[in-house]
């Protein structure tokens, strides 16, 4: 595979192709027949997926640092260039995006019945922006993509959303923009500080990373601005209230992309920018304490509030707050296990929550309600749907053997050293997670079937199975054999840990060190 890719110079054009292809796809979508828009979009997104898969092999495993870096001057007088590249972390995020996109298109097949051309054009734009966010290595470029993700989602929520869509859309937009604009100021200030120290005006990521120390006494403020932007995106309690509204109002594809990919931009931002730029601030005891506290509050709070939601979508939205809190805990846990765990939670949450939203969308298409009380007892009528819902729910709950557990476990395991109390508190989320999801699926597929409407609830069609099954495969695969993904990400994680110079994991006892040596020798 690697040789084949080399023979076509895959590494040289792939990142550009991933950006440009969806934009090219917009043209036929907009110009074509409204009915064929979805087909065009599916073709384009699938092609994008196929192209992106090669990245898995193109990335040299075990090699730290950014790879496939391409640099095209853009606004030279300001030191801005179109600079892209990936490492293990970007890789999985890009793949997550490209995998979910065709599924989202497929899930919108019947759901979107008005203004199809606009919808699919926005979806493709969204794809470009999302991929761009994860591969951008120029702060300016990153910021542009970061903001660019807002527009399609804003329209997707606002035009094809539910009854309260306009409120949700503007809330989503303004919330995110508040943080990001402050980050914009921080980016510019950082660049000028670095310029003052090095004499070079450049927005290139590596340049800034190397010289971020120049921020000096401004570092706390700069970190605060970055952190706020990403915290809103994640979202960390108490910046989360846009999320339930946006999720509930968005159409299925919107919810999927929002939850599965867009929230990860926040945590990705912490890992890529906020923490490595200002490790001294980010990992200082005070800031750590604050972030970990907020993370743990988010974990428990999200779960508890999810427990009492009458609307299934809102429930899942709050569960996202809970899961993303775990990611934050993992990032601040500062060990190989916790950070790798955080990354796995990011992926797992993408798969599980994405699948949940897709299933909710299928329910909604049949019954036009997301209220739990409208359902009940349908396991008898639709066994396949019920089975998949159960599998996905248990994945989200964190049943070992499915994907959710892997990340959760690693995060908590890795964080116990640095934050024992927070970790123990966060661990209790496994109770509440089981509570809210199982209670919900009980009210949907179990209990007495007393609404005759539900008798006519049709089981999944082939198209719907095609949407869900890939995710279920991923769920089981990551649950049982996450090793390949972990190994791909490990160099990047290691580099992150070294860059942030955290006290390394681990063995707090002499014996632990000994064991480590033994393990190393064995391999």
């Amino acid at each position: 595979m690697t040789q084949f890719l080399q023979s076509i110079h895959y590494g040289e054009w792939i990142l550009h192709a991933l950006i440009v292809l969806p934009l090219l796809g917009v043209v036929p979508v907009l110009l074509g027949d409204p009915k064929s828009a979805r087909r065009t979009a599916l073709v384009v997104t699938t092609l994008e997926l196929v192209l992106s898969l090669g990245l898995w092999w193109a990335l040299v495993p075990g090699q730290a640092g950014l790879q496939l870096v391409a640099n095209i001057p853009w606004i030279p007088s300001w030191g801005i260039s179109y600079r892209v590249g990936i490492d293990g972390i970007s890789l999985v995020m890009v793949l997550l995006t490209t995998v979910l996109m065709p599924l989202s298109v497929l899930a919108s097949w019947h759901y979107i019945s008005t203004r199809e051309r606009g919808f699919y054009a926005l979806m493709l734009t969204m794809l470009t922006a999302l991929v761009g966010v994860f591969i951008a290595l120029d702060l300016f470029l990153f910021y542009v993509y970061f903001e660019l993700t807002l527009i399609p989602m804003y329209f997707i929520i606002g035009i094809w959303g539910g009854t309260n869509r306009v409120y949700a859309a503007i809330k989503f937009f303004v919330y995110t923009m508040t943080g990001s604009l402050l980050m914009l100021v921080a980016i510019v200030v950082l660049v000028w500080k670095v310029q003052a120290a090095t004499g070079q005006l450049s927005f290139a990521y590596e340049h800034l990373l190397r010289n971020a120390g120049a921020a000096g006494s401004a570092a706390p403020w700069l970190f605060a601005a970055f952190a706020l932007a990403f915290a809103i995106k994640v979202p960390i309690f108490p910046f989360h209230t846009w999320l339930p509204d946006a999720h509930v109002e968005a159409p299925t594809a919107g919810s999927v992309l929002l939850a599965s990919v867009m929230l990860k931009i926040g945590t990705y931002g912490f890992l890529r920018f906020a923490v490595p730029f200002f490790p001294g601030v980010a990992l200082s005891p005070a800031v750590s304490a604050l972030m970990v506290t907020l993370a743990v509050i988010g974990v428990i709070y999200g779960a508890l509030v999810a427990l009492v939601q009458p609307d299934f979508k809102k429930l899942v939205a709050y569960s996202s707050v809970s899961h993303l809190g775990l990611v934050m805990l993992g990032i601040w846990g500062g060990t190989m296990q916790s950070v790798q765990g955080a990354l796995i939670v990011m992926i797992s949450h993408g798969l599980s929550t994405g699948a949940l939203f897709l299933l909710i969308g299928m329910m909604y298409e049949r019954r036009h309600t997301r209220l739990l009380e409208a359902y009940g007892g349908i396991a008898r009528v639709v066994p396949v749907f019920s089975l998949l819902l159960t599998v996905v729910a248990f994945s989200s709950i964190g049943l070992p053997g499915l994907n959710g557990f892997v990340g959760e476990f690693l995060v908590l395991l890795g964080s116990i050293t640095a934050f024992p109390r927070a970790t123990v508190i966060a661990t209790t989320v496994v109770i509440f997670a089981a509570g809210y999801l199982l209670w919900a699926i009980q009210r949907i597929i179990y209990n007495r079937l007393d609404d005759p409407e539900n008798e006519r609830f049709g089981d999944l069609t082939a198209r719907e199975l095609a949407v869900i099954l890939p995710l279920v495969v991923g769920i089981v695969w990551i649950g049982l054999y996450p090793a390949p993904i972990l190994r791909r990400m490990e160099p990047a994680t290691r580099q992150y840990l070294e860059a942030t110079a955290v006290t390394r994991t681990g063995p707090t006892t002499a014996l632990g060190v000994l064991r480590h040596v033994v393990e190393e020798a064995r391999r």
Partner: protein
Amino acid sequence: MTFSHAVWLAVALPLAGFLVNGALALRRPRATGLVSVVGPGVLVAAFVVAAGIFLELWREPPHAPTVVSLWSWLPVGQLQVDLAFQVDQLSAVMLLIVTGVGSLIHLYSVGYMKADPGYARFFAYMNLFVAFMLVLVLGSSFPVMFIGWEGVGLCSYLLIGFWFNDKVNADAGLKAFIMNRIGDVGFLVAMFLIWRAFGSLDFTWVTGHAADTLAPGGAVVTAITLFLFLGCTGKSAQIPLYTWLPDAMAGPTPVSALIHAATMVTAGVYLVARTNVLFALAPVSSTIVAGIGALTALFAATIALRQYDIKKVLAYSTVSQLGYMFVGVGTGAYAAGMFHLATHAFFKALLFLGAGSVIHAMHEAYHATHSHEDAQDMRNMGGLRHAMPWTFGLMLVATLAIAGIPPFSGFFSKDEILSAAFARGGEAPIYYLFYAMGILAALLTAYYMARLMAMTFLGPNRTGERERTHLHEAPWIMTGPLLALGVLSTVGGALNLPHLVGGHSALERWLEPVLAPGLAVGRLSMPEGSTEYLLVGAAVAIGVIGLLLGFRATLGRGILPAREAPPDTGFALVLNRKYYIDELYEAVVVRPLLWLSRVVLWRGVDQGLVDGAAVNGAAWTSRVFGGGLRLLQTGHVGAYVVLFLVGALWILRAVIR
């Protein structure tokens, strides 16, 4: 290639069964024939593998466990968890019990579930359960064990709520899973602490280095073991997390036998035995384990006294017996705990399956007459020995076993636990109290079992005139496994026959390599000579007295069918309502939590503070200010000039300085 290296087959077979049966359940729910072959078939095959492994170990007892690594599961830096199975004496015993008893129960289920529309689904779940249970007992590290640990919880959830269209059943499943999860928090935290202390989660590493790593009686090991035990209280239904198990009887009876009596609920005991060295290093934790065990044994036994549902009696009996096992492992008599685990698996499975046969018969009788009476209420039974002689006989065997009447299996195992507790009393007098509680519980056990037998099988029949003719013995596919279990219940004591009766503690020796690290920390000196005789005598006497009292008290009173029976009053009512513990939990934990979530967090913090005050408040404030500015814009030139001049004066003031 040895059997030990093929141990993955033992897991893979039921898993394959699950996949086949699951596919059939979705696509061909009527293909009962194939299901009947595949379902029990894979279990029997797994049992063959298990037996092979056992014989292999028997012939050549290894000194170190055989670890069969399938693939690298969680390779993260220093943490290297393989998906690996560990074959040693302890897991081999569990392997045999799970596959053996499991096979019998699967066979029984072929008859029991025959008419159920979810036949294939049932076997799929059961197969899956066995697969997970085997992962649990075979896992070579804490996380792998945890896969099984949670997996059996999942299957338990699915099987309790098997008849999910009844809200009660679904509720019971949910409750079981949540309660288990509370315990799982303990398990998880314990793993984290172990990782922190050892830098590894492999059993071999942890047990091998525990004594060097952890200070005996230290805070770390105490914390680890207490958290582990929290996990056990969930899975093995100990105080305070036991309330799910009686509710779990909502599932089909074979489920109760397999999961909620013989295998899954004993996982906690297995875990303590597996990590014996840690508990041995933490005397405080051990005492707590034994204490909780003794308290649970007694407490659950009292509740069992006043239950009318035949399965509920057995459920509380299970809780109580599990308490015994914890007394054993908490005392340091790990082998005795495991011994009781094994014998209990036999006789309690037998009891449940017997009860299942009874319910089956009752149910069919009521079904035939379209009556809606409760088929599980013992007040509607009575005199069934005529209709179901085999079941009666075999259940009597089990009753004698559980009551601790020699030479039935339960006698030996229970006696060993009580003796151990008594022996430990020499060093720590509180164990005398545990011993006393155990003895009292034994008395109550004999009593409620006698009551159960008397109400079910003896006396006049209360089923109803029309129904009586429909009562008949279960088919052979069901009584066959009963018979096998009856034999095991009878002779199971031979597993670990004490010196007293000429045995040589076979099980204890067998487990020696696994238990060695714990025993190295502190070995219990068992009572011998006259003390031993005295203890044995007391135990037997208690059992006999309990049985006699139970039969007398039950048969001596006229019992009315459930429909006509007067409600219980006074303490009897308290017992019947299980001390109102469920209501207490509901009032103290569940409702406040939901209230907190709904009223305080959601409506208060989320919608009120964050969204209302902060977010929308900011928007509102902006609009108010904007509105104020609008009012300023009166349209009158004069006003504009005034503001202009104010600005002008400000600027001039600023330039003058």
